[in-house]
């Protein structure tokens, strides 16, 4: 299962986009994962020591749980999740039915700015994997 990322160029373009749009604005670590908990791409600022494989498994489980809760209350989905900590925060955003973008950042970065950048990045990722805006949200 490769979610439209069929060649090395696409994965390299994803890496470049993760770095340019998020790491370069101060995000500590960003991961693109699938809903099964596999890591598709990841990029960090060189200081992140998180076990990304375990994190991806937990993040996929967390998102799936919240998604099931959304359906229980009559929502199609909660496409955005945000966990705020004292120093570190985590932002989850759905790219499409298969992929999740997870961003770890500290309090020096504002949530509003991050959200704007995440929206731009998601559109880029969809374009890279050959998916238009209207295909899947």
């Amino acid at each position: 299962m490769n979610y439209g990322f069929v060649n090395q160029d696409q994965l390299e373009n994803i890496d470049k986009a993760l770095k340019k749009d998020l790491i370069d604005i101060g995000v500590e670590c960003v991961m693109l994962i699938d809903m099964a908990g596999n890591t598709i791409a990841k990029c960090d600022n060189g200081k992140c020591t998180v076990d990304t494989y375990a994190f991806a498994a937990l993040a996929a489980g967390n998102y799936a749980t919240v998604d099931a809760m959304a359906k229980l209350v009559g929502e199609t989905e909660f496409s955005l999740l945000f966990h705020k900590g004292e120093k570190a925060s985590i932002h989850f955003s759905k790219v499409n039915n298969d992929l999740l973008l997870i961003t770890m950042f500290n309090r020096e970065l504002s949530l509003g700015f991050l959200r704007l950048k995440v929206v731009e990045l998601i559109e880029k990722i969809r374009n890279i994997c050959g998916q238009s805006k209207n295909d899947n949200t």
Partner: protein
Amino acid sequence: MAFINIKNKEVQVKIVYYGTGRGGKTTNLEYINTKYRHRIKTEMVSLKTHGDRTLFFDFLPFDIGQIKGYEVKIQLYTVPGQVKYNATRKLVLKGVDGIVFVADAMKEQRESNIHSLNQLHENLKSYNLDLFKIPFVMQYNKMDLKNSDIPVLPVEILQKDLNSRLRAPAFEASALNGGNVAVTLKKIISLTMASIQKELL
């Protein structure tokens, strides 16, 4: 489905240990984690209740080296066995590549095993997966209890109840002592890798 990263030459494979509550799924992973600690780079993740039962899943990732130039990362998961947690069991099965069914050989668990296997069949259907086609290994756990006063089902009965139609590779095991834990693991890894090998370049 396994994710094949062409850029990093890496394959991530998801294997799920499924079965009835208190059957030994977590114990299988704990034994693997202890026995092969020197080859496992990270800690096992367990989401448990206060009563030490699996609430969501256990997660244990490790590398098995290269196949056709691709670094293979095996990711072992368990599901919560308690009947009430079927919604979470279904979530853990998403994207599964191979399954070990851990059957509890205790006589009193006979119906629970059958119910759990039937539910697995239904849960896989919700992902358009077929129990008869997915890489699958049967493990009859707690065989060490044969030497105790606790009644244990003979393997013939377990095979008839659970494996007469599936005809999957089956192993008698004792997860607590490590008996056939590694054999089960090796078998499911080889079956799973064989099924995804054709996707590797």
